[in-house]
C-alpha cells in the first residue's frame, strides 16, 4: 500500500516538476508547481511528518504560490516564445551540468543505501505538532526568534522595493 502510494506520488512529483520547467505558459508552470508541492506533501505524510505536510500545503501551496500567481497575473507575463528554438548549446550545457550534479548527489547518497532501509518507528511520535512544538520553544528558541526578524525584514524590504512614489503617479499605472 505504502509502496504504491510512494510510486504514485513520486511519479506525480517528477512529472509535474518536468512539466513545470518545460511548460511555456507561466501560469501553467505555477500550477504544476502547486501540484508538485501537494504531492511532496503527500510524501511527507508517508514519512510520518504530518505537521510539516500540512504546513507545506498551508504555506507553500496556500500562500507562496498564490503570491506567485498574483504577481504573474498582475504583470500579465506573456508566454515565452521559442523555448527550444534558440540556445541549443545552452540547453545541452544545462542538461549535462544537471546530470553531473545529479550523479554526484546520487553518488554521495550511495553511502546510505545499505544502511537501515526503513522509516524509524520513533518517527510516528516525532512528526506530531506536540513533539515539534516542544523543542521549538526550548532547543531552537534562538532560530525561532531569528525567523521573526527574518520575516519582518522580508516584509519591510518588499515594501521598500515594490512601493513607488504616489506623487509621480503620472508615469506609472
Amino acid at each position: 500500500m505504502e509502496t504504491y502510494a510512494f510510486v504514485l506520488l513520486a511519479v506525480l512529483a517528477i512529472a509535474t516538476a518536468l512539466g513545470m520547467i518545460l511548460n511555456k505558459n507561466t501560469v501553467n508552470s505555477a500550477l504544476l508547481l502547486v501540484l508538485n508541492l501537494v504531492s511532496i506533501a503527500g510524501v511527507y505524510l508517508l514519512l510520518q511528518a504530518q505537521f510539516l505536510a500540512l504546513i507545506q500545503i498551508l504555506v507553500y501551496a496556500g500562500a507562496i504560490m498564490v503570491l506567485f500567481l498574483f504577481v504573474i497575473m498582475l504583470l500579465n507575463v506573456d508566454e515565452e516564445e521559442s523555448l527550444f528554438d534558440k540556445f541549443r548549446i545552452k540547453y545541452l550545457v544545462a542538461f549535462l551540468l544537471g546530470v553531473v550534479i545529479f550523479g554526484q548527489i546520487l553518488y554521495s547518497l550511495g553511502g546510505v543505501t545499505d544502511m537501515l532501509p526503513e522509516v524509524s518507528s520513533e518517527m510516528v511520535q516525532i512528526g506530531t505538532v506536540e513533539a515539534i512544538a516542544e523543542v521549538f520553544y526550548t532547543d531552537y528558541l534562538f532560530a525561532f526568534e531569528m525567523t521573526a526578524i527574518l520575516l519582518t525584514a522580508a516584509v519591510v524590504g518588499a515594501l521598500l522595493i515594490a512601493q513607488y512614489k504616489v506623487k509621480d503617479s503620472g508615469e506609472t499605472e
Partner: protein
Amino acid sequence: MHDIIAFLPGVIIAVVGLIALLMEAYKKSADQIYGLTIAGILAALGVAIAALFGDSGTAFTGMIVYGGVASFGAVVILLGSLFSVVVSRDYLMEIDLHRGDVYSMILLSIVGMLALASANDLISFFLGLETMSICLYVIAGLIKDKKTGAEAALKYFLLGAFATGFLLYGIALIYGATGHTNLTEIAAVAEPTLMFMGGSALLLVGIFFKIGAVPFHMWTPDVYQGTPTTLTAFMATAAKSATFVAFVLIMSRMLPESDTDIWTNVIQVVAILTMVVGNLIALAQDNVKRMLAYSSIAHAGYLLVGLAAGTPEGFTGVLYYLFAYTVMNVGAFSVIAYYERNKGLDFTEIESYAGLGFKFPLMGVLLSIFLFSLVGIPPFVGFVGKYYVFAAAINAGLIPLAIIGVLASAASAYYYLRVMVYLFFKDSHKEYSLKPASLLFSSAVVLMAALTLYYGIEPVLPFSGLIELISSYYSL
C-alpha cells in the same frame, strides 16, 4: 551567563531596528531614526568590545557561541556598519533615500550578520545567512528608479537564491551523514564518508557564493555598482566579515581533523583563482566603484589564503585581516561617495577624478591613505593584515600559495595607484567646485584613516595587543 546577555549586541540591534520601524510608521523624521541607529550600533559595539575580554562559551542550547571569535566578529561587523551608516547620511539624502525604513533594513541585516558570526549550529548559520542575504537583496535594489539598481537586485537575488539551494542541500547531506546540526556534535561523530564530503562541498559552494569567491563571483561587480555607494561599503565589509567569521567557526569547530586537508586543498585552489581573477579584471576597470568591487573579490582571495592554512594562526590572520579590510575599505568607499555626492551618481569614471585631489586636499589625502593600505604598503593596517595571513600560509607549508598572493597584491598596486595618479598628477579638464563635507562625515573618515595608520604601526609599538587578543582565542 544568561542567554540574552550572550547575544546582547544582536538583541540591542534588533530592538533598535524594530523601534526604528515604529518611528518610521509614526512619521518621525529620518534624522531622528538616523541618530537612533547610530546610538544603537554604538551601544552594541560597546557591549561587543566588553565581551571581547569576557569569557566564552555557548548559549541558547548550543545554537550560538559568545565571546572570543564571535565577539571579535561582532566588533568588526558593528565597526563596519557604524562607519557605513555614519557616512551614509549625506549620500542617501542626495539620492532621496535618507529614510527610516532604509536604516531599519540595515539594522535588521546587522542582526542577521551577528547571528551568522556567532553560529554554532547549521540551523542558526542558515537563518543568520538568510536574514542577512534577504536584507542585502533589498539594499541592492534600493535605487529602483534606475535600471542598474533593479537589475543588480534581480541578479543578486536569483543567484543568491540558487546558491541558497546548494547551501541547504549541503546542510541536509551533512545532517544526513551525522544526524546532528550542532557544529561541535558534528565534529564529534563526523567521518569522511562520501555523503559528508558531498555535503561539505555543497556547503562550501554556498559559502563561496556569499563571499564572492571566484567561480561564484559574477554577481559582485554589478551588485556593488548598483547599490548606493556607502551601502556598498556596508555589503563589502560587514556582510563579508560576517560570512568569513562563520566560515572560520565552521572550519575550526565542525571539521574533524581528517577532513581539514581536503577542505584546505579546495580553498587553496579557490583562493588562487580569486586573487588572480579579481586582480586581473580590476586592472582593466575604468570605473572606480567597479574597480573596488573587483578589488574586494581579490581581498576575499587574500582572506581565503588564511583559511587555506587551516591553522589557528591562519584563523587569527583572517580575523585581523577582516578588521583591517573593514576599516580601509569603508574609508575608500566613503571618499568615493563624497565625490559622487557632488557630481551625481555616474561620477565614478576614473577620468573624472583628474585633479580632484587638490580641490579638497583632505579627502584626496585620505583616499590615498586608504588606497595605500589596500595595496598593502607598510605603515598601514593593510600591510599588517596581509603579513599575518601570508605568514600563516607559509608556516602551514603553503609557500606557492603565499607567493601567488604576494605577486597578486603587487599587481594590485597598479590599479590602486592609478587612481592616485589621476587625483594628483592629472589636470582636470573642467572646473569642479566641491561641496564641503559635513563635520560628521569628515570626522568619521578621519577616524578611519587614523585607525588605518594606528594599527599599521601598532605591531611595533610596545603596547600592541590586538593580534595577541585574537590569537588567545585559539590558544585556549
